[in-house]
């Protein structure tokens, strides 16, 4: 985009075609995402107690305040009302462990917006998903606090508070699907309850805010790649259904990998992106040192989005091959 402004009162904005008309404005779409996150918020309160709302609110507050301050310092238009900072705050809050320290939450939120987003130029220019940047920073800065899990309120097995993935990786204990589907397992605030995520995710796809391709590619990819390992050795490797519902995979599928800014714009690119994440998640979970790898998988794929876009550029209609 180029702006010609010989005289500051007349501005001519030039963008290249095609101009696709969207049903929703950026602002409306952002608030739809906020609505879609409500079921996950409820599940966090139900399973980990009302204090978790304070964590999420702190995260939102610091994200919005950071965005406002940076826009003011750089003398740009304050764009807080578009809701993108609110979403970053909500997402970051929901991928933190229960009863996480509030000061650390604030640090993560400031880092997510300042370094994850505003340094690149603000909404639309960031390479990496800001919420995941904040989470990755917290994981590196406070590795112990970030992996200290609190067990859910209705935990059947009160002996261990390990997440299903950690339990499988280190103790070879396979958690049942039913509690993982409801959310009655250890894990980050919003990621444990598959049903809440599915409600929000399907709502987003239904109203047309999120394209179905990336989530579908990720789920199919996960079943395929985890399935290959499971077929090879069903005892050593967990089954695909467990892999699908465990950890932050579904939350990442519907809310992180569908961010419009940091994902491919072409249809073919979206499929590649989704399958790429699924493959990386399976590889990290099975061969990596960490039990969970959704965050790093999405961040790695974020970084190759420009290349994916370039190589999946659709052929111009009527042009020679």
């Amino acid at each position: 985009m180029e702006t010609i402004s010989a005289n500051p009162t007349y501005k001519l904005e030039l963008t290249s075609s095609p101009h696709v008309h969207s049903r929703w404005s950026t602002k409306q779409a952002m608030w739809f995402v906020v609505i879609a996150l409500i079921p996950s918020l409820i599940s966090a309160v139900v399973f980990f107690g009302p204090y978790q709302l304070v964590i999420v609110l702190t995260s939102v507050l610091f994200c919005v305040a950071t965005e406002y301050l940076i826009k003011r310092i750089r003398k740009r238009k304050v764009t807080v009302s578009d809701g993108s900072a609110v979403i970053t705050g909500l997402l970051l809050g929901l991928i933190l462990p229960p009863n996480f320290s509030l000061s650390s939450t604030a640090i993560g939120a400031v880092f997510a917006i300042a370094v994850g987003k505003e340094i690149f130029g603000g909404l639309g220019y960031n390479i990496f998903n800001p919420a995941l940047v904040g989470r990755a920073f917290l994981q590196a800065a406070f590795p112990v606090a970030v992996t200290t899990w609190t067990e859910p309120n209705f935990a059947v097995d009160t002996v261990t508070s390990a997440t299903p993935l950690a339990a499988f990786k280190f103790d070879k204990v396979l958690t049942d699907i039913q509690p993982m589907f409801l959310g009655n397992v250890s894990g980050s605030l919003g990621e444990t309850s598959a049903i809440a995520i599915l409600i929000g995710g399907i709502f987003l796809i239904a109203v047309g805010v999120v394209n179905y391709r990336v989530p579908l590619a990720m789920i199919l990819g996960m079943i395929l790649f985890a399935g290959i390992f499971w077929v090879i050795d069903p005892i050593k490797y967990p089954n695909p259904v467990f892999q699908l519902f465990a950890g932050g995979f579904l939350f990442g599928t519907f809310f992180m990998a569908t961010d419009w800014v940091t994902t491919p714009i072409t249809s073919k690119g979206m499929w590649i992106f989704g399958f790429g994440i699924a493959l990386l998640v399976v590889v990290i979970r099975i061969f990596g040192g960490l039990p969970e790898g959704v965050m790093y998988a999405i961040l790695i794929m974020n970084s190759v989005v420009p290349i994916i876009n370039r190589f999946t550029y659709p052929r111009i209609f009527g042009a020679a091959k």
Partner: protein
Amino acid sequence: MKEKKSLGYEYLKGLWEVNPVFKQVLGMCPALAVTVSVMNGLAMALATTFVLVFSSLLISFIRKLIPNQVRIAAFIVIIATFVTIADLVMKAKFPELSKALGPFVPLIVVNCIILGRAEAFASKNSPFRSLIDALGNGTGFLIALVVMGGIREIIGSRTLLGYQVLPNGFEPWLIMILPAGAFLTLGLLMGLANFYVDRKNRIEKQELVQKYRKTPDSVEIKGQEA
């Protein structure tokens, strides 16, 4: 052809205008690897400055004797001599520091600041000017390493020069003493430096435009006449 600049400029340019770390983006390896604490950064920068100053001086003295085709090899031999001196002195006098810096002291041989200054400055200028230039660049490198080391030590381990400066209530950010913290600190500092320079240039440009806007008619008429 060559414009003689004042000696003061030759020294001061190394501090900011062509700061080895922030502007020339040279010597990244020690800047990222050893700046875990102020002390390490300081020791590294002093050792590098020592090598930089003496190798620049010597290269400048014998610059007319070195055949052009083998100059890089000759520079490296001279640099390696001084690095060996620095390494052995550190091992004898400051064994703990030498251990903390590990292989990075011998690696000064391949520090591109030293070869860069030898190639770009010392081999073309008089010994005295080369000495001043080397001192300026060394000081610039020292400032950069101490600032980076300071930031990383304060946030990463709550201390400065080994003394605790932040209260126990502050949980140290482990990332700052990990390699990732080095890249973050360097990137943010470089961004800040560029932001500052950018703003200064913009303000200067605006002032220039304002100056010409005051007399737009006369400018236009002159143009038509020509």
